């Protein structure tokens, strides 16, 4: 199996002008999801032991989670209502007493996010274009075939032709990973204050978990 290659996505000119350090990194992996093996569930258990109430409270002052909080604020999202991915996982961990296993892909994304603080999402590589990036939505532009129309100037992850997901939000139904997916593209967002190495590490972590259990 060949080593997956990391590619840098494009960023719309207007967005890049507003957020010069904004970026999108992608990795394509030949992997399927499915039930998580014992080793992955064990790793989740191990990771959940790292969380304590006080650590979760102080998480917002750690550099990487804080950088995403600031970005949330700057794009009009209240991070105390719509939590950043790593904070959401941490809160769920406290509420449930552990990190719950869902499936191999979701577990891999949770592991990568907890390890690095960088959120990672996945698309079906066969249903998206070759070049992914970030841009602003047009008024009434639908998210997916027959999907809801979006308002203008929302930040979306898109390929050459269409929006694939709202940033940190809803993924277009027909572009997401399903049971039939055999190739995925993992995507991580880079914002100001997050070192490139953390973003790369998040992608490699998720890819490693997926590839190690095929």
């Amino acid at each position, binding site marked *: 199996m060949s080593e997956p290659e990391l590619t840098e996505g494009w960023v719309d000119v207007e967005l890049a002008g507003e957020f010069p350090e904004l970026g999108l990194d992608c990795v394509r992996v030949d992997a399927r999801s499915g039930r998580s093996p014992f080793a992955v569930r064990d790793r989740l258990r191990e990771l959940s032991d790292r969380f304590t109430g006080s650590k979760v409270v*102080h998480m917002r002052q750690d550099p990487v989670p804080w950088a995403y*909080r600031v970005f949330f604020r700057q794009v*009009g*999202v209240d991070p105390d209502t719509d939590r950043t991915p790593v904070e959401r996982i941490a809160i769920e961990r406290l509420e449930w007493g552990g990190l719950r296993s869902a499936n191999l892909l979701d577990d891999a994304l949770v592991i990568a996010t907890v390890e690095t603080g960088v959120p990672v999402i996945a698309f079906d590589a066969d249903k998206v274009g070759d070049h992914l990036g970030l841009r602003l939505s047009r008024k009434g532009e639908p998210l997916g075939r027959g999907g809801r129309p979006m308002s203008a100037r929302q930040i979306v992850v898109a390929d050459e032709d269409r929006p694939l997901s709202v940033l*940190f939000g809803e993924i277009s139904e027909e572009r997401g990973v399903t049971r039939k997916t055999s190739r995925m593209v993992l995507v991580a967002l880079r914002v100001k204050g997050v070192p490139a190495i953390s973003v790369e590490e998040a992608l490699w972590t998720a890819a490693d978990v997926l590839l190690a259990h095929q």
Partner: protein
Amino acid sequence: MPEIVAGRRAALPRAGSVRPPTPPPALPRTAPDERPARRTLLDQVERLESELSQLFCSTWPRHGFEWSVPSRGGPRMLSLAELEVLRDDLAERLAHARRSSSDRTYVEDQHRRRIEEMLLEPERHKWVRVANEDIGEPGCKHWHVRPRWGVLGMLMSWWRVRISSGCPLPT
């Protein structure tokens, strides 16, 4: 020719009586560049969020503070006016949280002093009870001034401070 010129001069108003018409203001040919203003506002939002996070961590485990600043229907690129409103809301929230924190700290200091006084002179603070929450600490510990040996202690004024052993076990 000189007559005509003279005639025209006569028809014109005399200098000094009426001001010459001012030319209309020149309209800008390009839209003003908002980017520096937007950059400044984004930096201010970043700084305010940092201060709000610090304050949140320093007030933990106290409850009753409001941290939320309403969402603007994001994630999207906000207009200049929306960024200004966001900055103002954050500043207001921060100022309010600081005031609340300051008031709370003052009250907690009073409670700490009261605990010391209770320990020194329990008979002057009969039945007073101060909990960990009142001094901004986590846990269920509390200090309670009670009479030793019940009614007999009340009659003899044998008062003492009982310190609870902690949170009750979950049922």
